[in-house]
């Protein structure tokens, strides 16, 4: 499979802005691999299309960077000042190298065209080189690719090396293409993808006709996408739908997925980042769980020892983002994980089992139930304890009044509300399901991304004073839904000034347009219908609740969420 053929289709994908056309070109690529290549080629091409060399669940990066890339191409004849000028002119290193390819003066001893395999394996090799003389070795490996590449091949080589392909391909579009080409329902593929978190592997297995492969099933130390809850307008409505249900305290913390194999423990955040090193005391506690192989889910909460109440959510996130000085932070924060689900135990997957059974297995592991009705006194006594591993507080009932009491109690001990779970539901990775609800006292806050910042006035003249905030549609397009300026301290404004100045796309004078990278959570008084914004809605009196460092732009709320909350809001009046 020649790299040239892949690049020609990447170019067509890049040139169109229409998602369906991108999908169709990718379908052509799949067909080409089927004709000319092998299943493994399709796997690699899927990673490359989204600017990766490693699967999505794998945190490793190539670590090549612009400087080394520039040094590699200047070592074979492109003049540095010409390259820098061209980069400035085009705004893209790939395009710059493509246009200067004719200036490469070094000949090669190898005259075969580049293959996908060679590109992929060479870059992986570069990523693994370390030690004495490693810079020179990396440089020579990188330059070997450019020596043999045609101009357009150089463009995509450079972007792949920087792990930013810029053709507008993403996992949902690839899933769409695979669904159409192989005639498999997209929902089925989405489910498998949620388990594997590896689009290349899924594509490879489809091409091999092996959708039942063990490799597509649950695997230790390959985190899976979490099942997500819907918001319900009322407890009564949820009970009407479910009948008897399990209520659990909804904790104000950070969701974690814990994998254990003997003495090896890894902990992943809701974004599936490896946060093991940030949580050493949790790791130690998990090692003591008397089960050999395990995948469980829980909420990690920072506890105030004086009150037994949760500390702000940000205290957990500070830990996740921390790579050093963990010991010092451990003294300041007491962490506890409330386990609430089990996915895997000693070779057995539980994701297709009913929740009622999964909960029983989890209770056996922990050693007690935390049934609110019968164990409330012990639970309340232990709020201030040093306990590190616990199990979520539960109430199984079909009585709305009793459920309301449990809800009020959960709020009184400082948590967010309740989860309402259908006892018969399997675990559905990566989906927002109607078998699991969350109920909170206020309208759900929204996760939005900042796309513009307006220069401040008066007291705020040294910072940006207000920010355009957007939600997204299913395709990932962004839609403004309001401006927010309240809820920010001076420290927040200072922080935003610094961060925004790093990601400015265009300076518009009174305001700046920025890359959609800063995700914030906002509360508001209500959602209004509005013709001021193309999405049709606006937030009334938005207020920043917190920064969501744990989320990327593809995790902000959707227009659909806004519509749903709007309907809930209308239902309350």
């Amino acid at each position, binding site marked *: 499979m020649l790299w040239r053929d892949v690049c020609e289709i990447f170019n067509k994908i890049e040139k169109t802005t229409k998602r369906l056309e991108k999908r169709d070109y990718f379908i052509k690529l799949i067909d080409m691999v089927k004709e000319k290549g092998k299943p493994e080629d399709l796997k690699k091409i899927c990673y490359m299309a989204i600017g990766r060399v490693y699967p999505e669940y794998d945190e490793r990066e190539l670590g090549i960077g612009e400087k080394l890339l520039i040094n590699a191409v200047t070592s074979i004849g492109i003049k540095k000042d010409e390259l820098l000028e061209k980069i400035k002119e085009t705004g893209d290193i790939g395009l710059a190298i493509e246009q200067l390819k004719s200036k490469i003066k*070094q000949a090669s001893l190898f005259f075969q065209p580049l293959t996908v395999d060679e590109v992929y394996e060479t870059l992986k090799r570069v990523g693994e080189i370390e030690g004495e003389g490693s810079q020179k070795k990396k440089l020579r490996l990188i330059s070997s690719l450019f020596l043999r590449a045609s101009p357009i091949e150089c463009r995509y080589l450079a972007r792949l090396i920087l792990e930013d392909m810029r053709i507008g391909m993403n996992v949902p579009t690839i899933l769409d293409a695979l669904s159409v080409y192989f005639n498999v329902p997209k929902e089925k593929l989405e489910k498998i993808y949620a388990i594997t978190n590896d689009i290349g592997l899924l594509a490879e297995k489809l091409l091999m006709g092996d959708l039942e492969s063990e490799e597509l099933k649950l695997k230790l130390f390959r985190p899976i996408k979490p099942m997500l809850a819907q918001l319900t307008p009322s407890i009564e409505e949820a009970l009407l739908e479910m009948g008897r249900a399990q209520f659990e305290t909804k904790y104000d913390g950070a969701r974690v997925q814990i994998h254990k194999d003997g003495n090896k423990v890894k902990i992943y955040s809701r974004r599936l980042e490896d946060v093991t090193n940030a949580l050493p005391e949790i790791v130690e506690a998990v090692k003591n769980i008397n089960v050999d192989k395990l995948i469980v889910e829980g909420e990690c909460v920072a506890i105030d020892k004086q009150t037994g109440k949760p500390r702000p959510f940000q205290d957990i996130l500070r830990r996740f983002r921390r790579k050093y000085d963990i010991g010092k932070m451990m003294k300041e924060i007491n962490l506890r994980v409330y386990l609430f689900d089990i996915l895997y135990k000693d070779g057995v997957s539980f994701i297709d089992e009913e929740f009622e059974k999964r909960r029983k297995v989890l209770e056996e592991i922990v050693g007690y139930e935390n049934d609110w009705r019968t164990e409330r006194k012990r639970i309340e006594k232990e709020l201030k304890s040093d306990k590190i591993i616990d199990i979520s507080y539960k109430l199984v009932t079909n009585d709305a009044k009793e459920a309301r009491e449990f809800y009020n109690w959960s709020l009184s001990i400082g948590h967010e509300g309740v989860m309402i779970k259908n006892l018969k539901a399997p675990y559905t990775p990566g989906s927002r399901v109607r078998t699991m609800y969350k109920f909170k006292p206020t309208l759900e806050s929204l996760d939005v991304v900042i796309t513009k910042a307006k220069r401040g006035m008066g007291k705020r003249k040294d910072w940006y004073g207000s920010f355009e905030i957007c939600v997204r549609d299913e395709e990932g397009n962004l839609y403004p839904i309001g401006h927010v300026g309240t809820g920010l301290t001076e420290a927040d404004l200072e922080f935003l000034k610094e961060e925004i100045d790093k990601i400015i796309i265009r300076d518009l004078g009174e305001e700046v347009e920025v890359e959609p990278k800063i995700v914030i959570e906002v509360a508001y008084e209500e959602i209004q219908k509005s013709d001021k914004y193309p999405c049709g809605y606006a937030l009334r009196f938005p207020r920043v609740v917190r920064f969501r460092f744990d989320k990327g732009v593809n995790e902000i709320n959707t227009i659909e969420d806004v519509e749903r909350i709007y309907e809930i809001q209308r239902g309350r009046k």
Partner: protein
Amino acid sequence: MFRGVMESAKEFKKVVDTISTLLDEICFEVDEEGIKASAMDPSHVALVSLEIPRLAFEEYEADSHDIGIDLEAFKKVMNRAKAKDRLILELDEEKNKLNVIFENTGKRKFSLALLDISASSVKVPEIEYPNVIMIKGDAFKEALKDADLFSDYVILKADEDKFVIHAKGDLNENEAIFEKDSSAIISLEVKEEAKSAFNLDYLMDMVKGVSSGDIIKIYLGNDMPLKLEYSIAGVNLTFLLAPRIEG
């Protein structure tokens, strides 16, 4: 089985140091007549070929084997060689390792895990070169060091009267001229005037193992790879370097 004994481990260290500037791994093709190996450097700009005839060894015994060697590890081991150490190389077929033994007042043994790489399909091509220059190694090496002051590539020129090594930077330049009858030139056979440019970094790597007294044989032609040959303690090294295109 494979076992070879060399008088000087230090001399063989030069071989390993030189080829490991260009290669990460290599496959020794061992047979009754000696050892052969060749590989292209990762950037595909240079080719390295090595031949150790059995005569280079004080003792030699071998069947046919492909021995894949991690040169990074081999280089580290060879760095431990002392001035008067003899070198013993032997294949441990049971453990699939190469034993590297330094023998002096005692024996110091290192075992290298072998790589599973097959013999290279890359060989030095049979090319007819119009020009062959034999030059004293240290003279050539010094000229390259001079060139390194001003440029990252060097222009080699040959006509029937002289061999020239020329470097040209943005502002400065340098030239080393070896007349046919200069003491540095052993022989100059020129059938066709030639001028080609080559990457200096690679050339410097290639001549790393050259000592004073050594002679380098240079094969040069227009638009042809450069071929370089010299020996270290009976080990014959051949290098190919793709030209740099001027325009």
